């Protein structure tokens, strides 16, 4: 298994002015924020970009006031949801919760929280599994493209995906008792 820095450690390093840590924080949560905007609340791209940037601007300014470093994950989730609702209201549209079954929105957001946990597990399984699974499931790349990019025979990609998924499942099962954002330890 690979090693992944915990959310709390990344936050601590950001506070000390570590530029690499800020890059890592943005990288770690960018997909989650993007998904809440576009899949959760179904914002148009321009609105989604504005919310996305405002989330990270607020996180950057607010890091010093975060009560607990471990709280970064739920804080970013709540902040993104609030800003999405504000954006919909400002545009004269009603929040999805008022337009459709509130339960459906909650379900989509809960799935994204779960997906973030799986993503943390993916980071923990390390390479080459992380990249193979990311390319196949998140970027829709073909076996051929993945094989060429990673210099692996295309005919082996399917079996590698299966093995990597099993490895990821193992990581998720092991990681259930670990604190949020912390995966396999160094």
């Amino acid at each position: 298994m690979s090693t992944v820095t915990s959310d709390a450690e990344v936050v601590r390093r950001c506070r000390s002015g570590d530029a690499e840590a800020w890059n890592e924080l943005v990288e770690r949560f960018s997909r989650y924020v993007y998904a809440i905007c576009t899949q959760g609340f179904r914002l148009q791209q321009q609105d989604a970009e504005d919310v996305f940037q405002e989330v990270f601007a607020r996180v950057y300014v607010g890091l010093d006031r975060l009560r607990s470093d471990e709280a970064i994950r739920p804080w970013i989730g709540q902040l993104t949801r609030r800003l999405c609702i504000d954006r919909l209201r400002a545009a004269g549209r009603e929040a999805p919760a008022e337009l459709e079954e509130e339960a459906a929105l909650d379900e989509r957001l809960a799935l994204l929280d779960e997906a973030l946990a799986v993503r943390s597990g993916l980071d923990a399984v390390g390479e080459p599994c992380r990249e193979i699974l990311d390319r196949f499931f998140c970027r829709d790349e073909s076996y051929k493209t993945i094989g060429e990019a990673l210099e692996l025979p295309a005919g082996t990609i399917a079996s590698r995906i299966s093995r990597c998924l099993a490895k990821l499942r193992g990581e998720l099962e092991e990681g259930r008792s670990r604190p949020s954002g912390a995966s396999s330890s160094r």
Partner: protein
Amino acid sequence: MTGYDIERIAGLLRLLRPAPSGWVRAAQELPQARSEVAALVARAEADAAFRARVVADLEAALEAEGIAPTPSTVAALRVRLEAD
């Protein structure tokens, strides 16, 4: 997550697709714009008329200071003005 079957894991992986790379890069560059934005906010705090002009048009205020008014810098300025 109640179970860890492979199909479910695959489905969850598919949900978190990469954000547009330009958005990510802009957010990562926030610290670089910090000092310019902070200087602008400091001026706004000291001069109510200037603050009113900044608040009225964030993009123009940034441009006047030589800062590109991207969604990232506009958001940073808005957040700083609210915080101060």
